[in-house]
Structures are given as C-alpha cells and as structure tokens.
C-alpha cells in the first residue's frame, strides 16, 4: 500500500488496508494502538520505522514476533532521532552512489514516547531538527513513562498523580505544568509541526499525511490516553480525548513554515473540571486546585488565540 496522496477530509477518504497487525500486547483501550494503526495507514509500505523504546515498542515486537509490516529498527531511549538521521543519511548516500530507490520515495518515520522525546531524547531530536534531516518524527504523548510503571516525565500535566509524584502531605501530584515541546520545535524553525488527537482521526491522518509529504524535518505531537496510567475506564479513551479538546486542555494546532492555525475550533469551552473528574490520576484535586488549572488553561488559550490572530478557542460556558 502506497503512502496516502489525497487529502483526508471525511471517513471515506481513509484507506481500508492496514499496515499494523492486531493481537499485540498493548492494553485494552490503549490510544497508542489506534494512533499507530492510523499512522501506518497513511504512510504505507515505503516508510522505514525507527522506534525509541517505550510501550509501543515493547508491546509490538516480542522477539521473534512483530506487528509491523514495515522495515523496523529498534533504538535506545536517548537516540531515536540520531538513529533516524543516520538511516536517512544512508538512504541519501545509497541513492547518490548507486542510484537505488531512484523512482521511489522512501521515508524515515521516527516514533517515540513523551519520556523518550521531551526528556531523554531531546538532544538527539534537537540535532535532527537543526541539521534538517528528512525525517517525520511522531511523539505519542501518554504524559508519563508508562512502560516502566507510570513515572512522571516532562510531559506530565500539573496536578497529575504518578508513582513518582504521589499524593500525600508533602506532594499533590505533579508540581509543574507540561513542557512546551511545540515551542521547542518552533525554535528550530522546521517546516511542519502539528498536534493531533485520536478523537479527531481525519484531522490526525491529514496531519500525518502532510508531515510525511514534507521534505525536511516534521514533528507531530499526538495526545495518547493510557488506561491504567491515567486510571480511566478502557472504553473512555476516545471520550477523554475529545474532552481534552473541548475543555482547551489540548489545542489542535498546525504550524506550516512558521504560520500557526487551529484546525479544530472550539467556540464554547467546557470547564476543565469535566476533563479532570473522569480520570483517577486527578481524583485528589480540590476545587481550589481545579480552579488553578482552569486559570492556567484560560491563559494558555488566550496565548494561542493571540498567536493565531483569531478567537479559535472560545470562553468557558457552564452547561
């Protein structure tokens, strides 16, 4: 199956064939499984997948089995982007010296978790973006180091319980807000940056398609609920994802050559309480703490609206 060329506007534009096999070890209701499925549908068979360790890797490649129909390379935690850069450079050299793949576009797709991207792999990602490698980088963000047992990462949101940000007398979950990975990518002036969310699959797949078609580095930051880590019901994966957008906790962005745009507008926002209340990791929050998060989101939304030059995300309207 070739990489998708036509824009994805409706469900009918989504290709039926799959490049990612079911029956892997990802948990019931894991959003990362859905994200990988959609990603591979878009990029097709000519992508070389380069993967940093984390849940997706460990659950889909128990040697000698695999769920990946594509060429697939395992990398350590800190060097996903470095490995991806190397594969891309090697492809170019092979093309130049021996003329292989002359009429085929082979592209490197790097995939890593938030821990492997926001924290440990940040330097290699920075190098990849700075040098301008032709790599599409996808970070699936489940907001903690899930594979090793729910330790906090730079992507863990304010107030969230994890095993290393416990809830007790001294600590009330994660003390700091999430790191701004989009801002970091922007500072490298790469041609394509986007945020995506599995509750909006056509939007997500269109962003994957554009990121794949970009010549040069592209980054797609994908929101990815984790059922055991977030203490949510298995069937609530999509429900929680949608609430993240409807409350302004997550904004659907696309930045093409530095020009930002909100792809999913939210005229009336829901209060963040609705998002926090259905997740066990936020169960300890008091009304005061919820209000603090609400104010933080209000400020973030204002900042985004100013940046994109329109009121893409509206005010909170209590129902």
């Amino acid at each position, binding site marked *: 199956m070739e990489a998708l060329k036509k824009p994805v506007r409706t*469900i009918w534009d989504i290709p039926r064939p799959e490049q990612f096999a079911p029956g892997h070890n990802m948990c019931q209701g894991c959003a990362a499984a859905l994200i990988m499925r959609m990603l591979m549908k878009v990029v097709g068979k000519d992508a070389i997948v380069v993967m940093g360790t984390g849940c997706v890797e460990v659950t889909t490649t128990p040697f000698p*089995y*695999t769920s990946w129909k594509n060429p697939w390379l395992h990398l350590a935690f800190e060097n996903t982007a470095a490995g991806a850069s190397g594969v891309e450079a090697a492809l170019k050299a092979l093309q130049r010296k021996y003329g292989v793949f002359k009429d085929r576009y082979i592209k490197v797709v790097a995939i890593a978790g938030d821990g492997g991207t926001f924290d440990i792999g940040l330097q290699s990602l920075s190098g990849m973006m700075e040098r301008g490698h032709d790599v599409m980088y996808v970070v699936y963000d489940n907001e903690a180091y899930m594979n090793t047992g729910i330790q906090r990462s730079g992507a863990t949101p304010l107030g969230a319980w994890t095993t290393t940000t416990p809830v007790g007398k001294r600590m009330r979950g994660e003390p700091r807000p999430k790191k701004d990975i989009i801002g970091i990518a922007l500072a490298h002036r790469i041609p394509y940056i986007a945020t995506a969310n599995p509750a909006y699959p056509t939007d997500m797949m269109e962003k994957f398609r554009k990121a794949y078609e970009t010549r040069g580095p592209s980054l797609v930051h994908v929101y990815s609920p984790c059922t055991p880590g977030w203490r949510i019901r298995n069937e609530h994966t999509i429900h929680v994802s949608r609430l993240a957008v409807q409350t302004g906790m997550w904004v659907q962005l696309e930045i093409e050559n530095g020009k930002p745009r909100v792809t999913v507008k939210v005229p009336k926002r829901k209060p963040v309480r609705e998002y926090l209340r259905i997740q066990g990791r936020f169960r300890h929050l008091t009304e005061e703490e919820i209000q603090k998060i609400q104010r933080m989101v209000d400020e973030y939304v204002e900042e985004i609206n100013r940046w994109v030059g329109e009121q893409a995300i509206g005010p909170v309207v209590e129902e």
Partner: protein
Amino acid sequence: MSGVEAARRGLVARIDPAGHPLPLSEAAPGSAGRTGFWRTHRPVLEPARCVGCYLCWLYCPEDVIEMAEGAGPRGQAVPVIDYEYCKGCGVCVDVCPTRALKLVEEPIGEG
C-alpha cells in the same frame, strides 16, 4: 530452528543465497497470542439498530472490526468483529451513536 518453531505465528525462516537459514520475523496477527482471551466482556451487535456509520471500525484500537457491505437487515454495512483478537475494551460500544453494540459478560469457558 526446528520445524515446530518455524510454524509458529509470525515467525518465518528464509534461506540466504549461501544456504544459511535466516530467522526473520514477518508481521502477522497475534504477536502476543490470542488476545481474545483477555476479554471479560464482549461487544455484541444488534444489527437492526446499526446505521452502518463505520465509527466502530474507525475507532477500534485493535483493528479487529471489518465492515460487511450490505450485510445489515436494511442493506447497510455492519461490523463483523474478530473475537480471536478483540480485547473487549468497549471503545466501539462507547463511540456507537445508536447503541447498536452492547458489552455482555463473556461466557465462561469460551473466548
């Protein structure tokens, strides 16, 4: 590699030009075995309520739903679930706009 091992799902032995066997993995369903065994509940379709909207197919994280075109009572497409690998997460039930899918307790001794 023994013949028994080579016959296991996903594992493929290829012979290189010099005649050495190469243990290569080829993608196949069930890299983690029959994940249908994980289920405590299974999604069951009531075809009369289904409007053939494809949303369950779209959102199934496991990719175990196939849409059967024209197979519904009103000629609509209806989902066919592969219970070999369906993990019973219930996402399809949650996203179905017409409540055509229901989660029912898994019968003991089956699945």
